[in-house]
């Protein structure tokens, strides 16, 4: 069982990304409003205001999608679908996806698994 974390830099793609999730078999997720550290520092901490120029092109806010999945096989389907939408995640400014092992979960009615 894994926790899949996807930080989506451009929230305009959220709808299409969630469609990709569902298509890949992930029908349960939690979406968080989030903000990059660089953006916060340069806009909210006056000492770092001089670094706003380095934030050009970055979106002010992003979305973080959390989902618990049964195994990583789902990723083989999800990643290509996501990259069709926003391009390669290796390109700067697209997003970051990673998984973490989940030791124990309680209160999840149905963990997303490959079908």
């Amino acid at each position, binding site marked *: 069982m894994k926790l899949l974390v996807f930080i989506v830099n451009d929230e305009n793609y959220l709808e299409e990304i969630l469609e990709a999730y569902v298509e890949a078999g992930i029908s349960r997720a939690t979406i968080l409003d989030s903000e990059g550290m660089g953006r916060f520092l340069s806009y909210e901490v*006056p*000492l*770092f*205001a001089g670094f*706003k120029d380095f934030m050009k092109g970055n979106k002010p806010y992003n979305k973080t999608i959390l989902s618990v999945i049964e195994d990583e096989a789902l990723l083989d389907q999800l990643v290509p679908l996501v990259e069709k939408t926003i391009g390669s995640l290796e390109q700067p400014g697209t997003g970051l996806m990673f998984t973490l092992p989940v030791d124990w979960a309680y209160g999840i009615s149905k963990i997303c698994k490959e079908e």
Partner: protein
Amino acid sequence: MVDFSGILDVSCIAIDVEAASRDDVIRKAIELLEKSGKISQGDSMYHDIMAREQLASTAIGEGIAVPHALSDAMQSTVMAVLRLKTPIDYNAPDGKPVDLFFIMAGPKNDTAYHLKLLSRLARLLHDSHFRERARTASNVEALAALLLEKE
């Protein structure tokens, strides 16, 4: 971890400085850096620091300010420390007048290093004990030693 040993020189620290304004403080810091041979284009550094101040005051509260800039005129990162005899108004977020100034400038292509130095400085300066020691340091050597202390 980044520290100030590579950029801090006792000749660029001054205490009991008399300055009447923001402009005055920055100019005195630049004079110190020029006299010690750390910089040659003081005017450019002055303009870049003042341009940065126009974005937002670099005062961080509790009587501290960190005027800084990334500048085309800089070949390497430099630092000056000024402790004023009488605090001045510096548009601080807490409204308190400022007496401790940490002035930094570095080359434009060294953003990451500049950020690390600023962050370290900010962290040290958030510590009330550190601020008190900076205000009571009896000479420039003691003030330098405080900044260079290993954690």
